[in-house]
């Protein structure tokens, strides 16, 4: 079973809920090694996205839904996360093309495109203590799951699991990109807020897909 545009919209709405629920946690993570706005930024962006989904015509395709999310986040999030997540979603939208339904392989490919977009924009490598440390293993896990015949929900679930681990792996790292890098050695022993939000977003997608029984 694939994921229709309704499924994508539901996943985006569930992401908005999760980001709002974890707003304070993300702010606090960013307060310690950044500038205390990551949760606020994402909440502002996803809240704007939900308003758009509520008020405008429902998007016609998964790609259109992802593109709406991309442009809304770019226009409203600001900071580093706005363009990075915006680009990720834009690339994902391009990757899925005009398909009416996303299958497991399509989801894995979209995640790969998203990661490529983040890297193209942010130039971070794994180990730099950024969202890339969560997204990179997530994409690998998604691709492996898709290759082994998993469902969309299973692919996303595998991605979320890997992202959780990837986020956790940022704790000991000394940041080389983003604001935390200004702290030098003092950035070690803290979880990177962007890797945490990446893991949260993937988990919300997985649960939305699983709950919808896809």
């Amino acid at each position: 079973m694939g994921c229709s545009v309704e499924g994508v919209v539901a996943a985006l709405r569930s992401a908005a809920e999760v980001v709002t629920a974890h707003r304070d946690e993300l702010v606090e993570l960013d307060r310690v090694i950044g500038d205390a706005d990551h949760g606020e930024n994402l909440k502002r962006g996803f809240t704007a996205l939900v308003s758009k989904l509520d008020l405008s015509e429902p998007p016609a395709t998964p790609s259109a839904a992802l593109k709406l999310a991309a442009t809304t986040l770019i226009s409203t999030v600001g900071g580093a996360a706005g363009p990075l997540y915006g680009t990720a979603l834009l690339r994902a939208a391009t990757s899925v093309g005009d398909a009416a339904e996303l299958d497991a392989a399509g989801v894995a490919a979209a995640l790969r495109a998203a990661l490529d977009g983040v890297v193209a924009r942010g130039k971070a490598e794994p180990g730099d203590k950024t969202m890339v440390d969560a997204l990179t293993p997530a994409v690998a896990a998604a691709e492996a799951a898709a290759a082994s015949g998993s469902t969309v929900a299973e692919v996303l679930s595998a991605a979320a699991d890997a992202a959780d681990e990837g986020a956790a792996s940022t704790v000991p790292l000394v940041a080389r990109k983003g604001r935390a890098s200004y702290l030098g050695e003092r950035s070690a022993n803290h979880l990177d807020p962007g890797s945490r939000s990446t893991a949260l977003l993937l988990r919300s997608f997985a649960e939305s897909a699983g709950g919808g029984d896809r």
Partner: protein
Amino acid sequence: MKKIINDPATVVVDALHGMAAAHPDLLRVQTDPAVVVRADAAVHGKVAVISGGGSGHEPLHGGFVGMGMLDAACPGPVFTSPTPDQVQAAVTATDGGAGALLLVKNYTGDVLNFETAAELAAAEGTEVRTVLIDDDVAVKDSLYTAGRRGVGGTVLVEKIVGAAAQRGDDLDACEALARRVVAGVRSMGVALTACTVPHVGEPSFTLADDEMEIGIGIHGEPGRQRVPMEPADGIVRHLLDPILEDLPFVEGDRVLLFTNSMGGTPLVELYIAHGIAERLLAERGITVERRLVGPYITSLEMQGMSLTVLRLDDELVELWDAPVHTAALRWGV
């Protein structure tokens, strides 16, 4: 958190309204998206000089909008870079047909958002250039990092490039000048207290009564190093020595010295620090030809200061002295 605000969510927009009310002759404010625009924009035939970044650094950048400095400023939420929409709106409002120069403090968020906006503006037919400002010597620069932050030098770049655009320099010349000023300016800051971001409600870090944070940026983030408090002489040395060694500034150099308050440090302390810095520069045979002392690039109510030193030549002096009419800097008019 004790602040004169109504609601953390409306701080930026409420302040913009107050600013518009205070300076009707100088600027106009748009709020969706948020942009501060020179009252007489667009100025025909003039390069539009645009900057922006997170709010909380007032008077930067909105206070520098006006004749001889910025054509527009894009204020993001507190300590959060603005979105490309804001930058695009600024370009549209100020496009006088000679292109736009975006002066961007080197933070990942600012760089990415301004970059996106530049692409969009270029697609709409405006020639747009971007110059990154990265004057903070507290940050080790390297190919593999985000690079140095833009801090105090930003004010000087905006003034000098603003003057060049005002006298009619074209986009190439303005861009080259901006790069030249960036190449010759260095800064470093210290915090005595943290600041509280309104939407967070508690201080960004905590410092004991006998500690200070050296090598801070302007976003309430902790600095590079926490050290015991010292008398003003020591504090000024902590800031000035790495600045001078970095460029390096050497005997015979002519400089502009900018002694800046992080917001909560009052003028009386700033003048003490400024006097010490002047003395130390004189001891090294460096001539201070121009100075700026005051709160010009701040971190909300943070107590602390930064020093910025810019190497001068005749042209830079002339552009610094050129008339400017903004909320925060005004002379010659």
